[in-house]
C-alpha cells in the first residue's frame, strides 16, 4: 500500500473496526449497567402537532433507505438483477430518492421542533444535538450522492458491497473506496461515525422497539375513566390469575 493511501486505510480500513467494537462493547455494557436508558424517551406527550410531520416521514423514509442499503450489501445480485431493465432501475432510484427526501423533511422538522419548544429543549441532551448534526449530514450527503452520482443502487451493489464484505472477512480492501468522489467518501465515513456513536445515543431504541411486540401476549392499555372501569379491571385481573 502506497504511503499516499495511509489515511484512506486508516479511515476506511481501520476506523470501521473501531466503530464496530465500540458498538458491540458499549451497547452491551450500557444494557447491563443502565438498562432503563434503553429508550428514545418519547416526547409526543410534550408536543403533539409538529411531531407527526417529523416522526412519521422521518421513520418511514429512513427505514426504507436503510433497508435498501442492507439488501444491496447482503444480496447485491438481487439489486443488479432488478436494475437489469432501465425502467426498473429508474423506479428503484426514484423510490429511494423519495425515501431520502422524506427522511430529510421529517428530520429537519424534528430538529426545528426541538429547537423551538422550551419543554423539548429541556429534555434534549448534548448527545441528542450531536446526533442530530451527524444524522443531518448523513442524510444530506446521501441525497447528494443520489442526485450527483446516480445510479448508486447499481454501483453500490457492484463496487462498495464487496468493500463492506472485505471488512466482514477481516481482509479490508479499500481500493474501491479510494477513487470515489469526496461526497461518497464522506457518506461512508459518516455511516461508520454513526455506528461508533450509536451506543452513546438514543439510537439504542432501535434495539428494543418494536421487537418484543412481535411475540409477546397482546396487552390492552386503557384509560380508567370511571370507578366501574376500575372494578371491572380488578375482576378480570383476578379471573386471569385464577386461570393461570
Amino acid at each position: 500500500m502506497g504511503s499516499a493511501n495511509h489515511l484512506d486505510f486508516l479511515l476506511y480500513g481501520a476506523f470501521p473496526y473501531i466503530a464496530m467494537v465500540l458498538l458491540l462493547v458499549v451497547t452491551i455494557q450500557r444494557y447491563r449497567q443502565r438498562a432503563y436508558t434503553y429508550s428514545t424517551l418519547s416526547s409526543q406527550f410534550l408536543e403533539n402537532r409538529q411531531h407527526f410531520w417529523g416522526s412519521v416521514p422521518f421513520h418511514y423514509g429512513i427505514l426504507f433507505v436503510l433497508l435498501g442499503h442492507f439488501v444491496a450489501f447482503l444480496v447485491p445480485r438481487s439489486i443488479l438483477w432488478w436494475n437489469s431493465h432501465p425502467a426498473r432501475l429508474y423506479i428503484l432510484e426514484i423510490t429511494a430518492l423519495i425515501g431520502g427526501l422524506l427522511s430529510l423533511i421529517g428530520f429537519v422538522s424534528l430538529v426545528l421542533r426541538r429547537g423551538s419548544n422550551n419543554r423539548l429543549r429541556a429534555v434534549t441532551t448534548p448527545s441528542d444535538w450531536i446526533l442530530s448534526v451527524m444524522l443531518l449530514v448523513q442524510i444530506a450527503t446521501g441525497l447528494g450522492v443520489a442526485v450527483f452520482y446516480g445510479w448508486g443502487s447499481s454501483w453500490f451493489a457492484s463496487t462498495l458491497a464487496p468493500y463492506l464484505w472485505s471488512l466482514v472477512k477481516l481482509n479490508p480492501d479499500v481500493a474501491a473506496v479510494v477513487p470515489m468522489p469526496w461526497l461518497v467518501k464522506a457518506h461512508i465515513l459518516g455511516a461508520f461515525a454513526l455506528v461508533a456513536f450509536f451506543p452513546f445515543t438514543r439510537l439504542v431504541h432501535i434495539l428494543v422497539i418494536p421487537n418484543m411486540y412481535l411475540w409477546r401476549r397482546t396487552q390492552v392499555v386503557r384509560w380508567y375513566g370511571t370507578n366501574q372501569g376500575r372494578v371491572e379491571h380488578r375482576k378480570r385481573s383476578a379471573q386471569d390469575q385464577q386461570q393461570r
Partner: protein
Amino acid sequence: MPRTRRTTRCCALLAALFLAVAAGRVAAQTPADDFKQSCSSCHTIGGGPLTGPDLKNVAKRKDRAWLRRFILDPAGVLASGDPYAKELLAAAGGVQMPPVAGMTGDRADALLDLIEAESAKERSKFAGSTVSDRPLTDDDVEHGRAVFLGTTRLENGGPSCVSCHAMGDIGWLGGGRLGPDLTKVFERYKDRRRLAAWLTAPATETMLPTFKDHPISDDEILGLVAYFRHAAAESEEDTAPRALVFILLGLAGTMGALVAFNNVWSGRFRSVRKALVENVRKGGA
C-alpha cells in the same frame, strides 16, 4: 477495577485484535495478474503500441531506475520536464499515463522483472487482445447496447455500464453519473483495437477494483466496441437536465407520500392526546 475503565480496555483490546488480523491479511497479487489488471489496457509486450507504447525490451530503451520512477509517479516525472516523458506523451496522442492505484516500489520492480521475462519469449501472453477483429455488424451494435443497459447481463457478473455512464441515445432519465459520458469514447480511442484492449482490463482507479474479478468477456467487448463506434457517429453527448427531472420526480413522489400519510393517519396518532384532553374537558375522568 472500575467498570468504565474495564470497558475502555476491553474496547481497545478488541479493536487492536481486529486491526492486527486485518492488517496481516492484505491480499497478495502475482505480477502477471498485476500487469493484466493495471497495464494491459494500454500496453502490450510484443503486440505493438496501443494507447501506450509496446513494452517489449523496454529496459533496453531506458534505464531501470527511470522506468521505476515513471511507474511510481508518471505525472511527477512529466511535470519535471523530462524530455523522454514528453516524447512518450506526444506518441500517445497527448494521453497521459494515469497513476496506478496503490503502486509501490516493490510492485514496480516485480512488473519490470515480468516485462523483461516476457520480452525474452517469442510470443508473450501479453502480446495483445484476444477479441475478434471481424467486421462489426448491426447485431453487434444491438448486443452492445443490451450489454451497456444491462438487459443482457454480463457473463462474469460485472455491473452494466449504465450504472455509472451516460450515452446520448438512452433517453428517459439517462445513464449513471459516477463516470463520464461515453457517447464519444470511440473518437477518443480512434482505433477499435485500442478500445477493445482497454475494455479487456479497465484500468481506471474506479473500474479496476470492480472488474478485476468480473472481467468483460470478448463477446461483450466486441458488442460494446460496435455500440460505441455506432454512437460516436450517430449520437451527441447527453446534455439534457436529467438530474433535475430526477429531483422533480422525487419531490412529486415525496408530496404524494406526505398526502398519503396525512390521509391514512388523519384520525389516529396525532389525535390521541387531543381526544383525551377533550374528554376531560367535557367532564369525563
